[in-house]
């Protein structure tokens, strides 16, 4: 029983991390039809800067932990905004070129990060509580998972409130459905593109700092590793669907954890099989709309 609870809750925690990365990817694709391969770079830069901030403020304190997350979110948002304005916007309506430029940026960013912070992973430390565990139904759950779940829940609630309660949120929901009709109502939909990139970058930034605490290190390849699973989650959830991304994140991560424990460490393989099944049976994903 306790091992099931452990696998389930660590799966949900890992799913929370996937969601932090996938939420932005899904919104960006839904509105702009751009598969953003640079998303991992937003995450990695945020993690490195978050680490630098925590180093400066003292890694053991909760204050520095919270500040590093906020700075990570800000860094992610700024990096993503600049990416949209400088690289994506000039290629408006040229989707293949937009994807290629994000691929190029992701490679260039890794090289740049290795140049600045080195090729070796940097071990990090945080508040002592993060290294401890909390017992639930006999299972000892590492506390980093609770932080991941809390952060993902807060981001999800914030995104839902933003999408449901604000005019920009309404524009984004309408744009995901029919972008040209939004334009035909006299709305400059490109402003929403920048906003969606900024929001996605901020979520990835939070994910970056927390991923660093989850893995206990940061390296130039941190974002690339998570990006693969975030893409899988985004496709399984349905491109453009935030709810789909949330459900698929938990589904994929829990399945991955169970397979790792009970199917001889085949978690990654099982996830890819799930992706293939979803693409064959339901190509639009769990919550995606037909084109």
């Amino acid at each position, binding site marked *: 029983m306790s091992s099931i609870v452990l696998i389930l809750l660590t799966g949900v925690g890992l799913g929370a991390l996937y969601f932090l990365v996938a939420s932005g990817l899904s919104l960006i694709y839904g509105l702009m039809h751009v598969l953003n391969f640079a998303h991992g770079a937003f995450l990695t830069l945020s993690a490195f800067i978050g680490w630098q901030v925590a180093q400066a403020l003292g890694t053991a304190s909760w204050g520095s932990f919270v500040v590093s997350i906020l700075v990570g979110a800000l860094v992610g948002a700024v990096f993503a905004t600049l990416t949209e304005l400088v690289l994506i916007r000039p290629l408006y309506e040229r989707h293949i070129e937009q994807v290629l430029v994000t691929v190029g940026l992701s490679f260039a960013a890794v090289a740049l990060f290795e140049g600045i912070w080195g090729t070796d992973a940097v071990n990090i430390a945080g508040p002592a509580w993060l290294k401890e565990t909390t017992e639930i139904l006999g299972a000892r759950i590492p506390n980093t998972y609770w932080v991941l779940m809390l952060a993902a829940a807060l981001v999800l609630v914030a995104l839902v409130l933003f999408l449901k309660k604000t005019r920009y949120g309404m524009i984004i929901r309408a744009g995901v459905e029919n972008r040209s009709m939004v334009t*035909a109502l006299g709305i400059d939909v490109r402003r929403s593109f920048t906003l969606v990139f900024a929001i996605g970058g901020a979520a990835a930034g939070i994910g970056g700092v927390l991923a660093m605490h989850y893995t206990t290190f940061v390296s130039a390849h941190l974002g690339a590793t998570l990006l693969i699973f975030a893409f899988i989650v985004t496709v399984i959830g349905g491109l453009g669907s935030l709810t789909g991304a949330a459900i698929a994140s938990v589904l994929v991560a829990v399945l991955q954890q169970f397979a790792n424990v009970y199917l001889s460490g085949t978690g990654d393989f099982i996830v890819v099989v799930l992706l293939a099944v979803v693409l064959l049976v339901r190509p639009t994903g769990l919550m995606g709309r037909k084109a």
Partner: protein
Amino acid sequence: MSAPILTVSHLSASIAGQQVVEDVSFQVPATGITAVLGRNGVGKTSTIRGILGLISRRGEVTLAGERIDTLPTYRIVQRGVGYVPEDREVFAALTVAENLALAERDKKPRREFVAELFPDLVARRAQLAGTLSGGQQQMVSVARALLNENRILLVDEPTKGLAPKIVGEVAQALQEAAKIVPILLVEQNLDVVRRLADDAIVIAGGRVVHTGKAREILDDDALTTRLLGVSAEAHA
């Protein structure tokens, strides 16, 4: 004919490299309803979408003397060009209220006017637009264009696929709307054209082949048979 509100000169348009409008030129008067007629596939919808810049196009389009063909779509609409698309294109996942709120550009949108015209939409404010009937969706689509003080409305096949009773309601709404804003109307239903339109433009083969008073065109059975492929008498 009063001074034109919209002038289209040598408009050509293409979709995915395929030319769908060849060389269309016409003027739309500043009052009343001007119908765009023609057989299926002659480029009526593409002409409307070309005016709005929703598809790749060339040529000159002026709104009250100001060139708008160099502007992006949202700026053209902001200049006062309302659009009611073919197939309604309401946002299915948004409520009726959200669909209307999204369309509001003016500081004082005409909410009362729209509510009087479409009382059913007031009752269905909280309903998702995707769950409305075709007629109700068309009302949302027309209402979106009427909320703002536009200088012209481009209305594309508003009665397509609707039940006869709803066709009457939509036509009535357009008649009311035409009292405050000129309308360029693409319409296949000749009864509706006869009821609403003052002037008419006939497009064939991607070009304007005839212009005149709508009733005169529709009363000329030989002309309608030749240009539209249908007998207007059959609709009368």
